[in-house]
């Protein structure tokens, strides 16, 4: 249902997420980020192959964003589909995250 590929370029971590981020898979999504804390100074989350996100997945993005903001670590979300962009807009996420 969901797959995450991690790729380091120096201290920049790119997480490429594939599939659906729902109440069940968001646990794995959260853990895959938490496992890497301390190893990166810049985080890119590539949503190119994400076709669904629910409020549980948004909760992971908020908790991650808060933690990284406190440590002054940059986080960018890339390649968001039109459907997911609508969800981000409705949630106000387009204003609080850097989405490219």
């Amino acid at each position: 249902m969901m797959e995450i590929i991690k790729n380091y370029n120096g201290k920049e971590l790119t997480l490429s997420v594939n599939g659906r981020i729902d109440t069940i898979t968001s646990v794995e999504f959260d853990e895959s980020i938490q496992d890497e804390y301390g190893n990166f100074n810049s985080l890119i989350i590539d949503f190119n192959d994400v076709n669904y996100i629910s409020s549980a997945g948004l909760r992971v993005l908020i908790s991650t964003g808060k933690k990284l903001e406190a440590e002054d670590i940059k986080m960018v979300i890339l390649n968001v589909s039109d459907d997911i962009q609508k969800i981000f807009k409705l949630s106000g996420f387009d204003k609080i995250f850097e989405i490219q």
Partner: protein
Amino acid sequence: MNSLKINPSVDQLHDVMNFIHEQVPNKDIKLDLVIEEIFVNIVNYSKADFVKINADYSDDSIMSIEFIDNGVEFNPLEQESPDFPDCIEEASVGGLGIFFVKNFADELSYDYIDGENHFKIIKSID
């Protein structure tokens, strides 16, 4: 009309989504969101013994779904909209799930009948 009766457990979410996907010809991300947020809300807060889902898809691309549970009386329609943050420090996702439901469904209704919550959703499918 088709029905699914299950235990109120998050582990059942994918069975719920599969049941819904079997009813409609096209996947609709907004329908999925409505279903997941309502189901997870029941799982987390209702203390119900069961959740029953009735689903009916009509020829004019209208999906009608009813969630029935015997948990604590709760009308999601009375939940206030969340506050929208100006910055990440203020952000939270409390209430966001039900907010999605209200935004993405075409019609919603709630009744509490004989100790059961009945939440009806009507949504046109894209």
